């Protein structure tokens, strides 16, 4: 199995999927003229007060029940952020297969930094 090929494929699928969801979200908002209770003019504004600070997981899932374009965009962005994490996990698999101890350790440190900074750090300081 060629790991470069698999890695490239997973990254491509991840990026295409996330961008497709984001684009679908934008189209939904344009078609409906709103998302959740926000009007189009509020959403498409330079200084819009609608931003990621209120978009936690339960908010995003709730948005799907009334087909909110915003939830599609947020889900797309979350998938996008997970692509580098997956990529690093695959690098770990590669170094484990090669039995390269130094690089197994280094990759684990990178993965720790990523997961800690994305999942735990925000709730610690917010």
């Amino acid at each position, binding site marked *: 199995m060629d790991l*470069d*090929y698999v*890695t*490239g*494929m997973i*990254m*491509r699928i991840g*990026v295409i999927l*996330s*961008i497709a969801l*984001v*684009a679908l*979200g*934008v189209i939904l*908002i344009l078609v409906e003229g709103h998302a959740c209770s926000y009007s*189009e*003019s509020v*959403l*498409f*504004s*330079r*200084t*819009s007060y*609608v*931003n*990621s*600070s*209120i*978009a936690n997981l339960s908010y995003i899932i709730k948005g799907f029940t009334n087909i909110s374009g*915003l939830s599609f*965009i*947020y889900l*797309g*962005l979350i998938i*996008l*952020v997970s*692509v*580098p*994490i997956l*990529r*690093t996990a695959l*690098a770990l698999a*590669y*170094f484990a297969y090669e039995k*390269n101890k*130094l*690089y197994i350790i*280094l990759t684990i440190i*990178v993965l720790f*930094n*990523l997961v*800690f*900074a*994305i*999942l735990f*750090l*925000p*709730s610690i*300081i*917010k």
Partner: protein
Amino acid sequence: MLTGIPLFLSVLFSSLLAGYLGSLTGLGGGTILVPILTLYDGIPIEYATGASLISTIATSSGAASAYLKDKIINLKIGTSLQVATTSGAIAGSLTVTYIYSHHLEPIIYVVFGIVLLGSVYPTIKRGKFEIPKNSDPDWSTKFFQMHGEYYDMALQKKVEYWGVRWVQGALVMFVAGYVSGLLGIGSGALKVIGMDWVMNLPIKVTTTTSNFMIGVTAATSSGIYWVFGYIQPLIAAATSIGVLIGAFIGTKTLVKLKNKRIRTIFTILLAFLGIQMILRGLGIY
């Protein structure tokens, strides 16, 4: 100032251009995207850097998936240096929350301008050599297994290389990661300085490997950016779609193109935007 759908299209177009140039140079789309968004589209710097951070992940992942085929990325060098860039990104993104919550935005403009101007000199200087002069391997070459080779399509030959001075390189990478977390960019310029100058790697290896590192570094900062609300979904949507399409066109040309012409265009643009960002930060422009 534009609003509504014309604003969305304007941001989309700016991002397309930034993504194209960013991928050709390995500097990442964000370096010129944030100045264009803040100076010309009137986007607040928080949202501009948040959108840039997101699209930086898109470009990096998209471009890296294309480079993988060509076997130019050096996974070991990239991974070992990511230890430094991700640590820097954590420090940088924590710093920026302090800056924005104390309304010190002008600092970000000025620092951004300095980073842009600071990218000019290495970009000119580097133009002379396609492949660096060999310097003798040191202890870190062996310890971090930094030997590699790739096939250069422009030169039509196989290039063997090795990296040196890992520790000094990693220090530059920590700063690159810090700047990335602070400004929401990939800070490819600093990554290129570290790998090209300090570690003496060939430009194509530097460009592709730094592009690979940029996504992981940017993803590290994204959690903080998300909960602090620096990501406006529609602006981030426009930039990630635009930058990705631009970068896709860019990667189709990178492997075949000689490096000189791109750098000249980019250098002028960097200097111009850098001066404008500093003036904005100082309240003059």
